[in-house]
């Protein structure tokens, strides 16, 4: 059950990233670029989670996981602050 949820998190976040990037390619809205960059980071975060907890359980990737999550969100908030009034 836990494994399925971790894999689903990775798949859904990857789908979000791809769809948002496609949206940006079509509309060129800056907000979509920042959102898609954030979801690319969150997809990496979730892939690291799958690698860490399912594929190679022995390796502790907690620091990398937290760092990727933090960077993704920081990038989005930066974009939101930079691109709005």
């Amino acid at each position, binding site marked *: 059950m836990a494994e399925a949820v971790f894999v689903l998190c990775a798949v*859904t976040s990857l789908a979000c990233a791809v769809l948002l990037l496609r949206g940006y390619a079509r509309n060129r809205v800056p907000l979509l670029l920042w959102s898609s960059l954030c979801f690319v980071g969150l997809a990496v975060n979730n892939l690291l989670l799958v690698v860490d907890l399912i594929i190679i359980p022995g390796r502790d990737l907690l620091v990398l996981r*937290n760092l990727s999550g933090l960077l993704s*969100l920081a990038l989005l908030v930066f974009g939101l602050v930079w691109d709005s009034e």
Partner: protein
Amino acid sequence: MTSALCCVAGLFFLRFWRKTRDRFFAFFATSFLLMALHRMVSLYLRDDNEHLITAYIIRLFSFVLILVAIADKNRGGPRKKEAAPRGMDSAR
């Protein structure tokens, strides 16, 4: 800190929603606030592997909400897409 950033992003999207009344932003705001909740719950359940799954189901739900937002937006047609960036473009 990541949780706080999620909250900030959620509040930004909430503001965009208030401005444009576009459901897309409401979905995004809910999703990011759920992500913040996920981070807080997993912090409290750090040593409890059995209940950690609850935290990740919240996270999964937040990603599904984004997918719903995108699907809802595409179904709404290109007319609504014009409204989405208004808040951003007015600053340019």
